[in-house]
């Protein structure tokens, strides 16, 4: 909202207050000032000129050559095309170098061979109106050479106030409201407002019927003897200053009063109102109205109408209708000032997409006592301009409103405990009085009368009064106090600890980059990944079509981030820890959709070259990273198993996908029983695999891509490894390299099993270091080369132990259909 300082000065003396001070003090005590600007700053460059001589241009019929005195020794010669320019006029002269609105720079020029040093301006060229038929002839006899703004007394500053900071202050939506704040801040008098309607005629009052309960008050005043036309310059300039385009007197006056008092009002052409009078009612389904902006509005019963008889003439609280609008020849007016229900106007204006100055004010819950004051103010302003104006009859005033003024109790102690111990009772009383609250004091307790303009919404409880005192006292004057409490660490939060540990490890040891993606997933991406049909929470008002769905998992967005990054990087390592939502599980949780916490990892690198090591695939590297992350959490080792084809998400490779299981219980150490160990219940908490090849092609990803998902909620259920350590072995280990040539279908796991078995508890580690298939092992076979460490707890192993191990392994190899390779 724009506030003109000159306009403010109509209500309160601003002497000695600079615009900057005012802006700062309003910000600190009332509402945020977003901007401070000179009104039409070019008017201080444009000067008053006196046309001393005018003659026809010798070579152009419509041009005049004017000699203009601008208060300097040397008068200016200006060529002017306006038909109304003449000697003797005082005019607005933009001299060479002056910049007018829309960056129009005045230069020295020659017009048809005649030199012209400046421009005599029209109102439109100065941004003061639409008048462009001729130059602006200045009224009166302003001093020659003076800047126009100063000479005409229209120097003004415009304060822009953030509307959001006025949401709760219906009283501040007009200049008088702001002036009231200024008066309170600076301890100045608010000038009285003449709002007495004055004498009324004895015609019969207009019939008025309020049928809608969303109209708590409707005031209709008939006015006659009006001459519509151009409004006075002072009013035009104030309206211009706050960004309103002046039109005709009736429109300007209605606007002016709204911007002055904050109460919207409407002037109908009385001729267009049926003798049946005004009816305020809800719109009927399918009813239409052409509003003043020329748009035909389709209405429904949530909208409210002002009707002339049965015919709609205005959309209540939002905009007038075209058919009843005031015309140039209108002499009889019907003034409407009403109170409409805030929520109702807000809904209606939102539904129709029609937000107006009026609806913005009604939405704030206006003071229902304000209409009468507004009517009086408008009529008095009109009477000042046109003394012949009469009010035809006593106003029609209908509605169920009641005065919302209320009384609150305020405890001085409460003020001191919430705000500052330094605020004493005298100061409390002083501030409340300055803000026009009524105050009765009894000891440290106050009974406070809240005026109706403040009580509709804003000031209804004790804390609201505390705020009033705080903002005038100024929060900057409140002394700091340190928090004091018992020293207690906050309770452990296992999930947050886990998330931190995962983040740290992934970004640190594994050198992955953390990404944060949107919670929305694009339909297109879901389609490409083959998961469009999964149930997802969806917003009904997305920012764009196709981005309405909320993710179930972080994986799709992670995969979605790959193609763009591959344009710039050969290798991409990303992870994200985030939430997903599973709506199908909402019922179990009392209607709230189940939230899952997940870590996603993606590793993409150029495809391994032919002949690369068996573990060159990203998938295997990612397995190592995941194993490290899990180990870092203090959890037991992961058991990896192939994922059934139907269990993996469709964007994972149908075969090369693994599930990682972790045990739900841990066997107590040292109590190993003989025989087969009892089966341990496991939880599948990880899946990991290659990106599905068709999807990779579809995404134009030509790389080796592996992805993994860790279910954090699942990991939290896994018991940590018990604390403890393994003693450093006292006896040396023997390292043995073995190569098992086995049938191709025999797995590394089978081979490892054979090694473990052959070791009879002596195998401390077995590391596969090569996998070979080719000529040297023969068709349908492969060689698995392992580096095995044998170690005993109680003795040094001998050559014999090694030989026995190899003998056993050889037999087991044979069982697998293979052989132990000898060199």
């Amino acid at each position: 909202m724009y506030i003109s300082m000159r306009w403010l000065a109509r209500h309160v003396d601003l002497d000695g207050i600079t615009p900057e001070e005012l802006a700062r003090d309003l910000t600190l005590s009332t509402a945020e000032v977003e901007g401070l600007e000179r009104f039409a700053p070019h008017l201080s460059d444009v000067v008053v000129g006196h046309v001393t001589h005018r003659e026809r241009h010798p070579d152009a019929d419509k041009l005049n050559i004017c000699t203009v005195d601008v208060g300097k020794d040397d008068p200016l010669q200006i060529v002017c095309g306006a038909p109304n320019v003449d000697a003797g006029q005082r005019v607005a002269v933009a001299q060479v170098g002056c910049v007018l609105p829309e960056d129009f720079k005045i230069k020295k020029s020659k017009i048809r061979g005649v030199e012209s040093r400046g421009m005599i301006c029209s109102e439109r060229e100065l941004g003061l109106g639409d008048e462009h038929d001729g130059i602006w002839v200045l009224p009166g006899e302003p001093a020659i050479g003076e800047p126009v703004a100063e000479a005409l007394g229209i120097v003004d500053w415009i304060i822009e106030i953030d509307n959001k900071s006025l949401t709760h202050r219906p009283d501040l939506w007009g200049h008088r409201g702001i002036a009231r704040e200024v008066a309170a801040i600076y301890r100045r008098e608010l000038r009285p407002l003449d709002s007495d309607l004055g004498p009324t005629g004895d015609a019969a009052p207009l019939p008025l019927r309020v049928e809608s309960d969303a109209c708590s008050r409707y005031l209709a005043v008939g006015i006659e003897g009006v001459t519509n036309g151009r409004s006075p310059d002072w009013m035009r300039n104030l309206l211009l200053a706050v960004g309103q385009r002046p039109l005709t007197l009736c429109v300007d006056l209605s606007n002016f009063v709204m911007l002055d008092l904050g109460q919207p009002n409407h002037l109908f052409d009385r001729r267009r109102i049926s003798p049946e009078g005004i009816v305020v009612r809800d719109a009927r389904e399918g009813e239409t109205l052409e509003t003043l902006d020329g748009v035909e509005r389709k209405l429904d019963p949530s909208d409210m109408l002002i009707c002339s008889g049965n015919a709609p003439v205005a959309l209540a609280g939002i905009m007038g209708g075209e058919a009843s609008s005031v015309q140039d020849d209108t002499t009889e007016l019907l003034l409407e000032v009403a109170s409409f229900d805030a929520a109702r106007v807000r809904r209606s204006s939102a539904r129709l997409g029609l937000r107006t100055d009026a609806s913005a004010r009604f939405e704030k819950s206006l003071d229902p006592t304000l209409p009468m004051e507004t009517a009086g103010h408008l009529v008095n302003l009109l009477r000042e301009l046109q003394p012949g104006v009469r009010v035809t009859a006593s106003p029609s005033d209908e509605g169920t409103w009641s005065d919302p003024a209320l009384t609150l109790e305020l405890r001085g102690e409460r003020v001191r405990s919430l705000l500052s111990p330094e605020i004493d009772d005298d100061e409390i009383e002083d501030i409340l009085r300055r803000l026009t609250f009524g105050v009765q004091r009894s000891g440290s307790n106050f009974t406070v009368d809240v005026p109706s303009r403040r009580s509709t919404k804003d000031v209804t409880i004790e804390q609201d009064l505390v705020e009033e005192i705080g903002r005038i006292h100024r929060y900057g004057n409140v002394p700091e106090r340190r928090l004091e409490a018992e020293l207690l660490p906050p309770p452990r939060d296992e999930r947050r600890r886990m998330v931190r540990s995962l983040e740290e490890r992934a970004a640190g040891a594994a050198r992955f980059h953390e990404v944060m993606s949107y919670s929305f997933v694009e339909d297109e991406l879901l389609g490409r990944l083959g998961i469009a049909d999964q149930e997802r929470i969806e917003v009904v008002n997305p920012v764009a079509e196709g981005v309405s769905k909320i993710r179930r998992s972080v994986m799709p967005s992670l995969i979605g981030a790959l193609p763009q990054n591959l344009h710039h990087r050969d290798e991409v390592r990303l992870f994200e820890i985030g939430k997903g939502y599973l709506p199908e599980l909402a019922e179990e949780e009392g209607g709230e959709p189940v939230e899952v916490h997940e870590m996603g990892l993606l590793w993409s690198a150029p495809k391994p070259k032919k002949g690369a090591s068996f573990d060159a695939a990203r998938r295997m590297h990612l397995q190592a990273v995941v194993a490290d992350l899990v180990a870092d959490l203090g959890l037991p080792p992961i058991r990896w198993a192939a994922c059934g084809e139907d269990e993996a998400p469709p964007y994972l490779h149908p075969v090369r996908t693994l599930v990682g299981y972790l045990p739900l219980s841990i066997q107590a150490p040292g109590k190993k029983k003989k025989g087969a160990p009892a089966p341990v219940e496991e939880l599948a908490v990880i899946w990991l695999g290659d990106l599905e090849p068709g999807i990779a092609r579809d995404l134009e990803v030509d790389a080796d891509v592996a992805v993994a998902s860790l279910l954090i909620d699942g990991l939290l259920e896994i018991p940590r490894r018990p604390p403890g350590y393994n003693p450093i072995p006292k006896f040396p280990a023997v390292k043995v390299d073995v190569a098992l040539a086995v049938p191709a279908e025999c797995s590394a796991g089978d081979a490892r099993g054979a090694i473990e078995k052959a070791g009879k508890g002596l195998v401390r580690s077995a590391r596969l270091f090569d996998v070979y298939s080719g000529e040297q092992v023969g068709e349908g076979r492969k060689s698995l080369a392992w580096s095995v460490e044998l170690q005993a707890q109680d003795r040094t192993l001998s050559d014999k132990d090694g030989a026995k191990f190899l003998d056993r392994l050889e037999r087991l190899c044979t069982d697998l259909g293979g052989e132990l390779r000898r060199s």
Partner: protein
Amino acid sequence: MGELPHRPGLHVSDGPGSPATINERFGVPEPLVRYSGGARGVAPKTHPFLRFCQDGLAMDPKHDALLEELRTRIAAATGDDELRAIERETTGKGGVVQGLLAEIPKLDPSERRAAGQGANELKQAILAELESARGALAQAAVEAERKGGDFDPTLPPPALERGSLHPVTSLTRRLEDLFESMGFQVLDGPEVELDFYNFEALNIPADHPARDMQDTFRCDPAGEKVLRTHTSPVQIRAMERLEPPIRAIAPGRVFRQETTDASHEHTFHQMEGLVVDRDISVGHLISTMKTLLREVLEVEPEIRLRPGYFPFVEPGFELDARCPFCAEGCSVCKGTTWIELLPCGMVHPNVLRAGGVDPEAYSGFAFGLGLSRLVMLHAGIDDVRHLLGGDLRFLEQF
């Protein structure tokens, strides 16, 4: 696969008569000169040099000629390998000295003593020569190393790629650590939130104009479920779960139905803060906010509180901090020298009540910090869309 199918290791040998040989790792390297062992049934070979020594033994018990010959060889040696070879040939197993000693029993007993002594002296002399040659060689190597070769100080080192945490994560952690050190609990709340928590319980009833201030994503036409527009719902959830005194922060993502551009984003991060206790006042809020800003801005903060309207606080404030980037106004502070940093205020009694806390017995303050905005301010990020854009060229800078 270009490699052999198997590597050297403990292999079962197929050579007849030869048991499994010890793995190369543990074995002794083959000597260059093997002293005629005979035991293994291999014909002894005699090195020509050894023959030379044997021949000289009779005429020169002190072996001066031999020593002279060796000195020349040692002096000519250019590396430790050569010295070791000489050592092996002479003093090692099957070497010259051993050969000499083996010849002694064949000598006349009167000569034996002198020959034994001579052989031992020869050994000591050789070892001394070798030792000194080694010292000289090592010293020469150090001198050569000191010259530095073709050192180029501008050669680029190999890139050690690193990972990174998202800047929002890093800032969140800093703040979590700070607040935890002051006894605050870090809480989490759902992003898909019920209207009750997001609005109703926060003193924003249906049709309240404040709902317009936060363009809300609705998850159903009636908006019973919404994407939370702020982290404030956690205030209610915290009060429902915890008994006063409550000190909590709640970082997380929030959503506004807004068209995105360089300075607007429909998804961003906030951190809520809540303190509920007896006699909590504006002074406590100011002190806590200053502590917060001291950590974030890393300077002693200059702040101002001005009235701000948020339905869930009363009184409510906007907290501005003096612009850290300028003294006279800049683009960041829009020329005002103040940066609007966080909305805050004293918890509205209706909100306390909604959380089951008696507003007569307790009071509290709450604040909402824009994490995304702070990260942008901090790093000078001019486009908010980078934060959730997933572009490595952005992420790897943090």
